[in-house]
């Protein structure tokens, strides 16, 4: 029954990929993803997987090769980080537009300039509109579990979409934590035999892929692509239910922490949610009804469910580890869109934190929760968008 280990996030995701044993993996090294794919390359050279690994000259080529392999009819995985994801941009849209269920762990890293190799969410947030499903992970365990579930979600015959599994660069990718691995045969049975849809290598049934589609049909294809996204939530929940049976671990569209009777809360993604939960506990001990919501499925965004979970709050702070210069943070924009249709909604503020790997400290969560307490007391807030942990 599985095994308990000490592993880094990169190691854990590489282990998931070994257990899944994809047909093809085309990748290019980039910090902080490098050590994940290096480990996977060792599995290939040690004969632990049957994967055809393709070492290419750039991330644009990595995603292009993945697209070719997936269209050919194989189960395909790759991984990247920050600027690597940025270089894939054109091909991300090709992968989703062609409905290819490629799975890609994204070890979140900031974007240049200035050059920085550390963790923030600018990379994946920029790819928000690329048509990929996005799952976000707080720690190595979630990154491992999400990677395994990602194959079932993306490859579902009603979905056939690529999936990004996001985990924080260095904070998760390079930190060792306690992990539970599933048995190889359990993972194998869970992800099932890969079934292709209209594969190019089915030469008995010749076909063309990637055609030119002009204004008379393009609009319809995009409408159809949106429709597929509307079916993702249910599949994510079904897959999570199956996953619970093999792992005992529960997943939803998002995680709520002490939120049911809360009056104030923070909405926060990935590793910083762990820190924030501790401070929520401290506030609860002081008798303050604080809570937390941590999104897991960011694309498609579960607007109604998030609105339902947050509707009884008096004030909420949405925390972004990515910025939209001249705009609100990307998570804030989603949550405020979710809450807007309600007649009574909490006061919403937005904090930008942790850019370029700046540590998110317990006192940052304290400052935010204290401000929310003040907002509830006075019914007033200072500014919607502010930076925390920044030197004046």
């Amino acid at each position, binding site marked *: 029954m599985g095994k308990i280990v000490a592993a880094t996030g990169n190691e854990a995701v590489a282990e998931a990929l070994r257990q899944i044993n994809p047909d093809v993996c085309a990748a290019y090294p980039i910090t902080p993803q490098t050590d994940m794919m290096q480990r996977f390359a060792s599995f290939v050279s040690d004969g632990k997987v049957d994967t055809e690994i393709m070492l290419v000259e750039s991330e644009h080529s990595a995603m292009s090769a993945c697209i070719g392999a997936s269209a050919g009819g194989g189960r395909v995985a790759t991984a990247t980080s920050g600027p690597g994801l940025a270089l894939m941009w054109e091909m991300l849209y090709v992968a989703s537009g062609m409905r290819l269920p490629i799975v890609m762990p994204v070890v979140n890293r900031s974007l240049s300039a200035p050059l920085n190799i550390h963790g923030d969410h600018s990379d994946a947030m920029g790819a928000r509109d690329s048509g990929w499903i996005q799952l976000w992970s707080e720690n190595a365990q979630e990154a491992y579990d999400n990677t395994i579930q990602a194959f079932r979600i993306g490859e579902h015959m009603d979905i056939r979409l690529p999936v990004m599994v996001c985990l924080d660069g260095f904070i998760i990718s390079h930190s060792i934590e306690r992990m539970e691995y599933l048995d190889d045969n359990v993972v194998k049975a869970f992800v099932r035999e890969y079934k292709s849809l209209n594969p190019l290598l089915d030469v008995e049934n*010749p076909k063309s892929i990637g055609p030119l589609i002009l204004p008379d049909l393009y609009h319809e294809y995009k409408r159809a692509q949106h429709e597929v996204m509307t079916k993702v939530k249910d599949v994510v929940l079904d897959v999570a239910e199956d996953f619970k049976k093999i792992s005992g671990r529960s997943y939803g569209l998002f995680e709520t922490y002490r939120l049911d009777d809360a009056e104030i809360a923070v909405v926060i993604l990935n590793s910083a949610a762990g820190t924030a939960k501790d401070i929520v506990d401290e506030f609860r001990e002081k008798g303050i009804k604080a809570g937390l919501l941590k999104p897991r499925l960011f694309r498609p965004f579960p607007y109604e469910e998030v609105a339902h979970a947050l509707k009884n709050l008096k004030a909420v702070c949405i925390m972004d580890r990515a910025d939209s210069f001249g705009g609100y943070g990307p998570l804030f924009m989603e949550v405020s869109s979710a809450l807007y249709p309600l007649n009574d909604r909490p006061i919403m503020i937005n904090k930008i934190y942790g850019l370029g790997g700046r540590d998110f400290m317990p006192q940052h969560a304290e400052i935010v929760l204290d401000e929310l307490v003040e907002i509830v007391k006075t019914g007033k807030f200072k500014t919607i968008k502010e930076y925390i942990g920044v030197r004046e």
Partner: protein
Amino acid sequence: MKIPGWKELTPGAVILQAGNATEFKTGSWRSLKPKWKEENCIQCLFCWIYCPDMSIKVKDGKRGEFDYDFCKGCGICALECPGKKGKKAIVMEEEDK
């Protein structure tokens, strides 16, 4: 040809009917028209190989007339044609001439 609605599309725009490009006539794109001068033709079939469409009709190993339903007028055939004694067997002419 009826244009399908968004619910009727193949996922990922895959074209499952092999060879259906024959239904899409590209000849109307042409502004220059290739003309075949049979007297200068040495039947090398370069034009047939180089034509990016299927506009050179070949029968029994010999080229015949252009298929103007598909010829886009790109002029590649005229450029590549060696002709006979320095005289091209394909020349490009203005479409309305």
